[in-house]
Structure formats: C-alpha cells, structure tokens
C-alpha cells in the first residue's frame, strides 16, 4: 500500500438516478472517501445524479484542471459500460486515461443487495479498493504496429474462395492454401443448391477458375500450414507443399495418365465412397488446379515398384516419383481461416443401420448420386446400382440436436432434406416420406421452398425416427426397410416400408480443429467449433488480432452465409491493410530481463506464442504485439521478473488491501 501523500485523487460517487442511491447511501460513501481516505491522497470527493452525463463528466474535467488531480476514481456502474467514457473525460482534461478507475457499485452493489446498511458498507469497501488500486496505476500508451499488405487465406471452400477473391480484386496479394488437391470444398460435391436449385457446379466452377488464375492469388493446393509465428501485421507462416509426384510446370492437364492408370479405388473423398477414382486422380474434371496427384497408398509403383503406366503415358514427362515435400515461408499481415467442417459419421447411429443396411444412404452420398457427373450419372438407384426405388424415406437431424452425438442444430439439414425430397420426386416420381422433428426454414425463400415440396406431395411425418430395420414383423414388411417412428401428430407408432433411406447428416467441427486452433492461437467452444471474438457483434474476428474467420469453421452455415462471411472477413482485412498500422490495448506483460533467471517456466504457458527464449542471453522475452494481456505468465514467474500493465501485482495487492480496509481497521 502506498501512502504517497503527493497523490491528488478525486473520487466521484454516482447516484445513477436512483439506481444506486436507492440502496447505497451515496453521501456516506462520499464522506468516507473524503475523510477516511484523505490520508491515502483523496483531495476531493463528490456525488452527482448522473456522472456519465455531460455535466457529470465536466465536473471531473474541471477538477482535474483546477485541483491538479493526478488520479480519478468514479464509483458508478460496471467498467464494461462506462470505463471508456470516464477515461476519455480524463484524457480531455489532460490526464492519462489509464489513471482513472471505475468502482462498480451498481451491478455489484445496489442492484444485487437489498440491505441498505450492508450495501453502503460494501460500496465503501469497493471504493476503497479502487482508490488503493488507482494509486498504483501507471500512465500507459497504446501500441502501434505496421501491417504487411499480403494475406493468408486457409481453406479453399466457397468461404475461402470468396474472401481471397475480394482481397485480390482490391489489388492486394493473397496466399490461398488448401490441403486437398483442388479448391471447391464441400460445395463442389453437391448437385443442386437450395432453395433456388441452381446447379452447384454452375455457380461454383467460375469462382474456382477465377481464384486459380487471378494474378493476385498465389494458389497453394495439396498444401498445409505447419507453423505460424509473429503477430498482427507481421505473421510469418510456414506452408508444407505435399508432393503430387508430378511437375506442375510441365503438366498440361490432359488427363491421359488418369485414363491409363490401371488401379481403380473407391473414392472416399470427392465421391463420398459411392464412386471410384484412379490411383492418379483429380477430384473431378473441373478441379482447380487441373494437376492430378498420385495416391501412393494405392499406386502400384509405390506399393510394388512396378507399373509406371502414368509416367510412360505422359506426353510431357511431367511425372516425378522422386518428388519430396517442400516447405515455404511467407510473410503476411492478416490471416483468414475458412477451414470448413466435417460430416457427422452416420455409422455411430446404429439404429439407423447405415453401414449395415445397404440401402441406407447419407446425404452426401445422395448428393453424388444425384449429380449428373457422379457415379450413377444422376440416376437415383439402390445400392445394387440398378434398381430405382419406389418409396424413399428422408430422415432429418441425424447426429444433430441429440445429446448422444452433437447437441446442436446443424442449420442446413432441413433445407437439404427438402431439396432431396424435391429431387427424388422430380426424377423418379416416387413416394417420399420426410421425417422431421421441427421444420426449420427461416432464411430468404426457404419456407417458400417448403411450401413447394408440400405441394409436390411429399408426405411429412413429424417424429424423430426411432429405427430403420430390415427385421420384418409380417409378410408385407419382407424385403423392405422399415422406418419405425412415432407420428407425434397422431400419437401413434408407425412402421413405414420404404426402399431407400437418406440420412440428413449434420456438420461437425473438423476432426483436427483443436490442433488448427492451437497452431493459430484461437480457441474452440465446447462443441469444438472455433470461437468468435463476439458471437453477435464480431462474428468474423477471433481473440487473436489479425486472425479472422469465415464460413462453417465457427459453426454450421448455409452457402449464402458462408459467402457473406468470406466477404466480411475480406473487408476487415482490407480495412487493416488500408489503415497501414494497428493500435493495440496497452494491457501487456513484459519481462524485466535483469531479473529473469532464464528458468523457462513461462515459455510453455503462452497460447499466443508471445514468449520467446533468447538462447544467447538466456532470458525470456515477450513480444508485446502478440501478447493478449491475460497475465498468466505474470502470475507464474517464480522470480517475479514479469510484470503486467493494467493489472500489476501492486495494483491488485493494493486493491485487496483496500477491499479489506474495514476489517483491518476493526482489528487494529
């Protein structure tokens, strides 16, 4: 506790109308500050109806100027509401804004307590704590950092493509990194898109092509980010380029190698496991870039050492079996993560029989089946590859809204299911049953689409399907898939025989989202989705400055929202680039190197990689631009060598002293 009598502290107690004064005796608090805390340096204490009003703020400004106050405490509402207001008032009067403290006697006192006497005593303690703390406050200056004009976009799905194009079209350079062999993401697998039923390829391929050929976009497919160093404005990113076993500069994309390759394997990727590809392949004919890759696990040459058919057939001698992975380090100022989603594994819901009952399909399998370029050339058929179903059942919420699997609504499945119902009707004229719990069609033209599907004669059953089974109970059920469900609108169980079942499976965070989060220094929610800086007001920012986020990486979204987020993230990045420099909050940790023993205990504590160990001088150092100000290292340093501005040991210990002053005075 400092008893530095040279301080001149002003204390201002707000009535907040009657919000504070109806429970707290503000005059008593004021008098305590003036008399009880005079020895601590309080030279003036006032109370006022509304401190945050213009006259209230002017009162403070006037006192700072006339009385030469060097510290200000405002006892009012939560600092989350008006800290900035009063700091600015101090600033206008020429006082460093960080020498002003707010004592929350509304949210923490008058609104939550009823006993007037106890509330007043507590308010006094809170004010004392703030006074003791403010004595230890130090003037702080904001930090400014220059921004590198290049941007890294991670993920080449529709959100990433959109973001990359927006930035590139504004004339700034973008590194677009995609871990698959082609950009396009999940959208490239779809047949039609709801609710307008445009063909996904028709609207996506031009964008893919544009991104692949844009002079400002450096496209890096079959590549992964392996390291991120630096901080906002100055990231240094290491990218691993996996070997395609093919010299891109020689490949013309003629596809002869693919044609000649003798090995056919089930395509678990693009074709969702219901189609085949070769051991040298591109995801599709529209792949961007057009270069194939060799799947070494299935390639005869890599497995058995013979074959080389691709090499022999290549007219430009582009095949290179010796190719190794390469690492590339690039400097960027901002990063956009558009890493997308994984699909729920329907095999987990064993009562729906996926994986056991051949004619149970997932939504993504069905997308490929519907697609004219897909394995069945767009024919809707059973697993035997030829029989057209007569009756199809579509099940919503598979793996979603279910505590046994994912406890959230997957957003797109209702519309996806309706789209399937329409497609089945349109192409086969089948009887279609649609099993739903709640029909969620809130976006533009979505409910109209529901109306259309109703009109087309799809039979809707409200109930979560209990099981899909091939165990017949009577002769009429033989050879059918029985969908057993309570039709909740009549309150009876029904067993509906169908030929084909489509499971509308939900979205999941990428299986490696946690590692990705760690790599970029951003967090995941309990469900595993990346956490936004603010779910409503800043949905495309993360807690790490300079790292933005778009699309389904933060949670299930439809295409329009993903695209909008891609654009929004691009706008934020351009905003940063245009500003040229960024201002950072001065709440930071720093190492006093004379005191640092180099024990390295702090080194593994920082999730933002702000702490580095200087091998030559055997001390640790904190990069202020990377530091987010959490203070964990400050609390951990065994030598007391790390201090944190804004929340220093002295400030907090003094505040504790102040908060307990009534107790210690009584003990004395």
């Amino acid at each position, binding site marked *: 506790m400092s008893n530095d009598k040279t301080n001149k502290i002003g204390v201002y107690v707000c009535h907040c109308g009657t919000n504070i004064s109806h429970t707290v005796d503000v005059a008593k608090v004021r008098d305590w500050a003036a008399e009880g805390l005079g020895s601590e340096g309080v030279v003036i204490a006032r109370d006022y109806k509304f401190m945050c009003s213009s006259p209230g703020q002017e009162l403070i400004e006037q006192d700072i100027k006339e009385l030469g106050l060097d510290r200000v405490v405002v006892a009012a509402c939560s600092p989350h509401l008006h800290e900035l207001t009063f700091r600015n008032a101090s600033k206008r009067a020429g006082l460093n804004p960080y020498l002003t403290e707010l004592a929350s006697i509304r949210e923490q006192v008058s609104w939550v307590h009823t006993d007037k006497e106890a509330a007043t005593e507590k308010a006094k303690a809170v004010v004392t704590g703030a006074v003791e703390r403010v004595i230890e406050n130090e003037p702080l200056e904001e930090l400014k950092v220059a921004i590198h004009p290049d941007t890294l976009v991670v993920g080449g799905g529709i959100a990433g493509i959109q973001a990359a194009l927006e930035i590139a079209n504004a004339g700034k350079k973008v590194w677009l990194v995609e871990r698959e062999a082609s950009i396009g993401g999940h959208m490239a697998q779809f047949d039609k898109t709801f609710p307008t039923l445009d063909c996904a390829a028709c609207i996506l391929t031009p964008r893919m092509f544009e991104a692949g050929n844009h002079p400002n976009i450096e496209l890096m497919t079959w590549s992964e980010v392996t390291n991120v160093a630096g901080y906002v404005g100055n990231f240094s990113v290491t990218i691993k380029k996996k070997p395609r076993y093919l010299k891109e500069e020689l490949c013309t994309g003629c596809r002869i190698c693919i044609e000649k390759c003798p090995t056919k394997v089930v395509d678990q990727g693009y074709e969702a496991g219901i189609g085949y590809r070769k051991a040298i392949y591109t995801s599709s004919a529209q792949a961007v870039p057009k270069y194939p890759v060799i799947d070494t696990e299935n390639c005869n040459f890599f497995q058995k050492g013979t074959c080389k058919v691709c090499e022999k057939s290549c007219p430009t001698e582009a095949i290179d079996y010796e190719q190794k992975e390469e690492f590339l380090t690039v400097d960027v100022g901002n990063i956009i993560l558009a890493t997308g989603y994984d699909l729920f594994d329907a095999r987990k819901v064993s009562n729906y029989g996926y994986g056991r009952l051949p004619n149970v399909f997932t939504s993504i399998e069905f997308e490929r089946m519907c697609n004219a370029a897909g394995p069945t050339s767009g024919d809707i058929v059973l697993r035997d590859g030829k029989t057209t179903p007569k009756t199809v059942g579509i099940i919503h919420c598979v793996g979603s809204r279910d505590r046994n699997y994912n406890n959230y609504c997957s957003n797109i499945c209702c519309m996806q299911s309706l789209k399937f119902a329409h497609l089945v009707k349109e192409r086969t004229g089948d009887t279609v049953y649609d099993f739903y719990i709640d029909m969620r069609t809130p976006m533009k033209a979505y409910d109209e689409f529901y109306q259309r599907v109703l009109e087309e004669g799809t039979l809707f059953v409200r109930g979560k399907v209990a099981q899909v089974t091939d165990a017949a109970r009577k002769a009429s059920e033989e050879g059918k898939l029985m969908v057993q469900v*309570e039709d909740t609108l009549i309150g009876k169980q029904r067993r509906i025989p169908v030929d084909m079942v489509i499971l509308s499976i939900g979205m999941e965070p990428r299986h490696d989202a946690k590692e990705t989060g760690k790599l970029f220094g951003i967090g995941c929610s309990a469900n595993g989705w990346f956490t936004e800086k603010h779910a409503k007001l800043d949905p495309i920012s993360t807690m790490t400055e300079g790292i933005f986020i778009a699309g389904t990486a933060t949670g299930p979204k439809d295409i329009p929202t993903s695209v909008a987020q891609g654009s929004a993230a691009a706008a934020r990045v351009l905003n940063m680039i245009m500003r040229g420099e960024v201002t950072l909050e001065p709440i930071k940790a720093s190492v006093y190197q004379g005191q640092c023993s180099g024990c390295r205990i702090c080194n593994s504590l920082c999730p933002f990689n702000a702490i580095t160990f200087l091998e030559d001088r055997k001390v640790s150092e904190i990069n202020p631009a990377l530091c987010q100000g959490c203070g964990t290292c400050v609390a951990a340093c065994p030598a007391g060598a790390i201090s944190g501005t804004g929340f220093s040991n002295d400030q907090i210990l003094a505040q504790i002293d102040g908060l307990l002053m009534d107790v210690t005075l009584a003990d004395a």
Partner: protein
Amino acid sequence: MSKTPVEHVHARLDHDEDLSLLHEVSMKTAGVSRLEMCIQCGSCGGSCPSEMDMDHTPRTLFAMLRAGMREEVLLSNTPWICVSCYHCVVRCPQNVHITDVMYSLKSMAIQEKKYRDSSAPDFSETFVEMVEKYGRSYEFGLATRHYLKHSPLRMIRTAAMGLGMLKKGRLNMKPTTIKGMEQLTAILNKAKEMELAHE
C-alpha cells in the same frame, strides 16, 4: 364428471401454467429425470416395442404431465405396458430417464389407487410382499396367488407348463428365506419412512 383432455388443458391454462405435476414426477424419479428437457420428438414412442397396447405414447404422456393432467396420466396404462427394454432411453436425444419415469408413475398410481386394471399393480405388490417376507422372490407363490386372483382360466391353461417347470426343477415349491430377514426388514421399514420428494 371427468373432463376431456382438451377441456382439462383449457381449465389449467385458464389459471396458470402449472408445472407442479411435472416436478412432482421428476422429484419422485431415481437419478435426474431430465423430464423438463423433453422436446416432444417421439423417439420414445417410435422405439417402444409394446406401444401398440398403450393408450398414450410416452411422449404424449410427458406432454400431458406438462399440462398438469394428473387424472389422465395416472390412469393411463402406458407405464404398466412398459417392458423396461430401455430402447427409448438410449435413443432419447435429451437423455430423459424415461423408464424410471414410468416406474415413478406406477408408484404414484398405486399410492393414489388410480389404475383401470388392478392386475399389474397387484402383481408388483404381491412380488414385493414376497420379497419383503422372505428376502428372495418366490415365483411359485407369486404365480399361484396372482393367477388365482386375476386369471384363474389362464392358470388352467398354463398348468401343464407349470407342472413341467416343477418337474424339471425350475420352480421351487417352498420359498427360500434369507438369514438377515430382521436386518432387511429394519432397512425397508426405515426406507419406507422416507420419500424422495424434497431436496
């Protein structure tokens, strides 16, 4: 005169939303019932193997609980038809302890003597009576007494089977009594004094 379910709901809603019945059942259920979490999806009613003999699906019953339809719920045969197969429990997306709620409803119905067919409650009570008397179940005693009271005809029908069971040593004529009967009685008597209504 008893009201129709719809009238009953209206009667309730005219006053205020009364969730006391829901809470009462929840409190009487072993473990944490999570009954208030039901989203009326019907995965219970869809799963139930004996639903065809129930007057209401479990889901409907839960809605009725919410609506405070005490009479109708307690008189429902649903809990008595429940075969404790736990299919609904593992499929419930909200992890409601459905089977245990059924047990609670049975015990409430027995306490308030609200059931349409006394056969099932009698069976349970007789079973428990035997257990309380001997510490072990006593199938022979249970079966004879139950059939005599409720379906003497069926007893004749199943006599041959029963005889077969006896002959094959699968039915003990005499009950087995545990040694610690006194201890068990003390425990059960103490237990009966308590109710799990308030926490």
